[in-house]
């Protein structure tokens, strides 16, 4: 499905993006950035586990997977930075849709880290 329409789907897609970029960055010889993706995966899994509170689960609208495609076939000089920019955009779009403060904060932090790398 292309929709990212639940708390779990937002977090799952973030983890999926991080995994993809981690492997991509590793292949493109960006070990530090790849390791940072690994740390973010652990953080996102923990935040999902600790902050999914049933009373706050509301449907999410306006996010689709096709807006955040990572081109792992691109081996140009700035390719990893481009991937980081895609991830940063996802976090920027997703964070305001999450009504659980800790999770929102974690997404914003992930976005900021990708942004800094992309610049």
């Amino acid at each position: 499905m292309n929709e990212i329409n639940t708390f779990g789907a937002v977090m799952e897609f973030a983890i999926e993006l991080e995994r993809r970029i981690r492997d991509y960055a590793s292949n493109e010889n960006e070990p530090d950035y790849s390791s940072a993706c690994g740390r973010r995966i652990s953080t996102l899994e923990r935040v999902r586990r600790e902050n999914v509170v049933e009373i706050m689960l509301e449907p999410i609208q306006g996010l689709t997977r096709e807006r955040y495609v990572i081109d792992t076939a691109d081996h140009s000089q700035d390719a990893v930075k481009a991937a980081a920019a895609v991830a940063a955009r996802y976090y920027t779009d997703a964070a305001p849709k999450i009504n659980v403060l800790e999770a929102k904060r974690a997404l914003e932090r992930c976005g900021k880290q990708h942004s800094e790398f992309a610049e």
Partner: protein
Amino acid sequence: MTKVLKNYVGGAWIASDSAATTPVVNPATCETLAQVPEGTRSDVDKAVAAAKAAFNDWRSTPVMSRAQYMYRLKTLLEEHFEEFAKMVVEENGKTRDEARGEVRRGIENVDYATHVPSLIRGYKLEDVSSGIDETAERQPLGVFAAITPFNFPFMVPLWFLPMAITTGNTFVVKPSPQTPISMDLLFHVLEELDLPEGVVNLVHGGKEASMAVMEHPDVRGVSFVGSTPVAKIVYETCAKHGKRVQAQGGAKNYIAVMPDANMAASVANIMGSAFGGAGQRCLAGSVVVAVGDAYEPLKAELIKRASGLRVGYGLEETSQMGTVISGAARARIEKMIADGLTEGAQIALDGRGVKVDGFEQGSFVGPTILDGVEPDMNIAREEVFGPVLSIMRVPDFDAAVEVINRSHYGNAASIFTSSGKFAREFKYRVQAGNIGINVGVAAATASFPFGGQKDSFFGDLHGQGPDSIDFFTDRKIVIERWL
């Protein structure tokens, strides 16, 4: 050949004395996940005997040591978090987010139990008479048991078990035969704690096992969550047999929406309340009471948002609503919808007969909205326990409170408003045990008792929070003078 679940008694996995079993079915895929034994009185006898034998040593285990087991249990539950959530989806049918929420809420109760050493302290008064001191000491009572429902197969047993054993009691869980596998998994985790044998015990079964728990002379107290008719039976039977009892029954939860409410935000929250867990929650919002001019915009927004909900298999992250528990439940819910229409309600959104690609045999009922519901209709008064939301229109706030208070249930009620005056009046006047102010699911967290009034609760002390300390301990009064 699917696995036949075993009982956990005295620290060992043993087969039930009954050869008869019932299939545990995934309500979305219709796959048989396991066979659950139709446990017998003798199964319960063994579990209670093991719990009774373990009690004296366990109660004298220092409370700090008992609490340490809860710290370790929390760690293990965090490690197995996703495994539990997946199992809850598979046996219950709810969405993965809802299952994760359930597991989180269960773990919160383990967190709370780590605080027992500070919660269980007694109190003392010197010189109540010349040279005489008086003390109230809390003591555990013995064997407690829980009979738990299908809708929260992981969380509800954890409302009781951690507090019961950390306060020094021993425990027997009898889970719903429709969703017993979460407890099977939990007891495999509990086994890793190396608790003394008999401190925690698991018995599967249905009515016979439940009656055996309620009638057993060595069980000191029973916690129950289920429907109101059964809760009444549990309350009466336990009382007759001299036990403590906390029996939580069904619900019919009303949500008042004032014209001054933030409609978009309110409706988003009401969606979760009415359709979360496919409406199979004792806190599910079931009747929206639209006050005055709130009616038209509320109705329009409810229909728009509910019709957009994605119904699907809970293991798919994008599913926003899962199944009901069984085909029988689906048939019962669909009949209640039909009966509501016969009574004069109008269908605004019809979830009957919904099919999900790839899961055509699944027990799905789509979000359903009935309009024009009147207070005297059966659909407005009785619990549906499914994803059915009724809309009722009243002229003003007082009329809303009157309608809500006419219900024989009193589990939860919510108001959506931007007025502090109405919010205050609502919580003050409405006869329900859990009140939501701009919150559709007023679910008490672990350090608060889970409320409930009228036909929604039978007993004195609620589950969770400080009430659980009172339920699982007795206060012994010591009056002393040293001559």
